[in-house]
């Protein structure tokens, strides 16, 4: 009974995610059709011959009805084809897969950095709610959250690369030299992580305070257990659950937000690939890149959602009792 209920829950979440991905493909392909004028003429320029325009339209799939184009997109996708770069004919999938590891490394390092700084800030803040430290952390958190990542990127570049010359200005480091690559990763990571440090600190503090007001915590206090032990051993574990979900969802958001750090620090990645493609009106690359980001975004949200259901015993019990949907 319990596993059946869990299976239904999993199937429901998976179906919703698949529908969102399919819907986003329809939206992406529809958008290409809405380009003012003929997309192939926009790409090739007004001097292009009618034959070249017709050939490019056929290559992009614009000579077919939308529904046929959607099915063709998925058919090609399952055979590992996301279309071709309109200028040099290179496969878009290859371009995306080449850029993805750089963006993933940046997003993962940013999230690890955010956890490493956000969790201690939340613990410090929750020790004395309303105290000086708490108010300072609250202000810093809002400051971190509200400051755009591209402003942080430019400021970090200005201070640590241009003025102090501690970190390299641009690029992703020498290929094969891990130390150099990590050195090049420091500033983009800090720029991307700043907002998430604030999010994690605030969210975890709020959950910790809620947890510290529970009856079992009051009982522990009555038994004389130290505040530090209560915080670290008994409050942190259950309080961290909502943060796990947000971190999971945030990872997908970071993949999209990496575009600024990649452009400013001139790093190769999915964001800079899409940006360059937009500037050159290379629509198949824009489509492929955006599709992969949406796919990863939906996937990370799904994993975060499911892990929340599987980690939290209360959620597991709710699903087991058949109140899953």
């Amino acid at each position, binding site marked *: 009974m319990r596993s059946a209920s869990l299976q239904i829950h999993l199937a429901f979440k998976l179906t919703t995610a698949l529908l969102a991905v399919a819907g*986003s493909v329809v939206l992406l392909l529809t*958008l290409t059709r809405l380009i003012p004028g003929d997309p192939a003429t926009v790409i090739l320029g007004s001097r292009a011959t009618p034959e070249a325009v017709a050939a490019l339209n056929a290559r992009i799939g614009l000579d077919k009805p939308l529904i046929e184009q959607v099915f063709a997109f998925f058919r090609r996708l399952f055979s590992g084809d996301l279309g071709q770069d309109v200028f040099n004919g290179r496969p878009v999938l290859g371009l995306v897969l080449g850029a993805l590891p750089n963006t993933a490394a940046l997003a993962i390092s940013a999230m690890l950095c955010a956890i490493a700084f956000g969790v201690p800030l939340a613990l410090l803040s929750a020790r004395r709610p309303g105290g000086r430290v708490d108010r300072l952390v609250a202000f810093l958190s*809002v400051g971190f959250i509200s400051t755009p990542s591209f*402003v942080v990127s430019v*400021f970090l570049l200005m201070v640590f690369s241009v003025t102090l010359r501690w970190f390299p200005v641009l690029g992703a480091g020498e290929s094969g030299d891990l130390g150099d690559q990590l050195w090049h990763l420091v500033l983009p990571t800090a720029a991307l992580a700043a907002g998430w440090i604030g999010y994690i600190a605030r969210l975890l503090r709020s959950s910790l305070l809620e947890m510290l007001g529970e009856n079992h915590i009051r009982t522990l206090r009555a038994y004389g257990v130290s505040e530090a032990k209560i915080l670290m051993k008994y409050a942190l574990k259950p309080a961290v659950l909502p943060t796990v979900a947000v971190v999971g969802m945030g990872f997908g958001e970071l993949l999209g937000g990496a*575009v600024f750090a990649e452009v400013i620090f001139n790093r190769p990645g999915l964001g800079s690939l899409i940006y360059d493609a*937009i500037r050159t*009106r290379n629509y198949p690359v824009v489509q492929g890149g*955006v599709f992969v980001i949406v796919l990863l975004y939906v996937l990370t949200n799904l994993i975060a959602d499911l892990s929340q259901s599987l980690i939290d015993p209360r959620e597991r019990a709710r699903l087991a009792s058949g109140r899953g949907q």
Partner: protein
Amino acid sequence: MTALVDLSRRPGGTFALFAVTLLCLVAIAAPLIAPYGPNAIAPASRLMDPSLQHWLGTDQLGRDILSRLIFGARVALGISLSVIAISLTAGVALGVGAALSPRAVDLVIVGIFDIVTSFPSIILALALVAVFGPGLGNVVLLVSIVFIPHFGRVARAQTIAIRNSPFIEAEKVLGAETWRVILHHVTPNIIGPIFVLACMDIPVVITIEAGLSFLGLGVRPPLASWGNLLNDGYTYLDQSPWLATFSGLSLMLATLGFALLGEALRDTLDPKLRKNL
């Protein structure tokens, strides 16, 4: 007035009120207080440090940075308020419509919201700009599309929560038209949380607009957008740090001010949230 006093007592409330009031005044009075025209070029005095003639220095074309920042406040506030007005109106109309419509219509509208929110906000904004091109009008319309589901979902949830309330049922029994029920009974009861959400979305809209302009895909130069100014500052970072510094600080002041105002407003309007914040 009481609400303002209450607001100023919230954490960060005083700073938020100060920052937002300052920005609004600067935006309104821009032509009166700017020492130079925003596009007045002076090639002889390019990339100058702050001085008595140019308090915040000059950019790569010799334009006064302070004047451009002052006019930039107009662009930032103008775009963000326009985006919020459009997305709030469309979102509330769609959300309330979905909640009060037959199940099939509701499913279609919710499905569209789900598809739009399956894109990270900045990526959707980039995809839309890639199709329709940059420019002031396009940025306002395209960023509005990104934010419609934010308001639509809250409006729908709030409407579902009250649609079977006795006072709505009583109106229907008395023969009130649907539009009357929506305008006089549903909207006033759901607008509070939506207003707070609007305030909290303003810094996000300012960030997206400035981000698009920074990438050269938003407001077109020479219009003084803080994103354009930051991009100019980034390009000439090794020659003069002032443009990047002041445009970045202006963006920080605006986003922090509105973020704190949104939070203070939420705390003031929703006493249930106060205990955890």
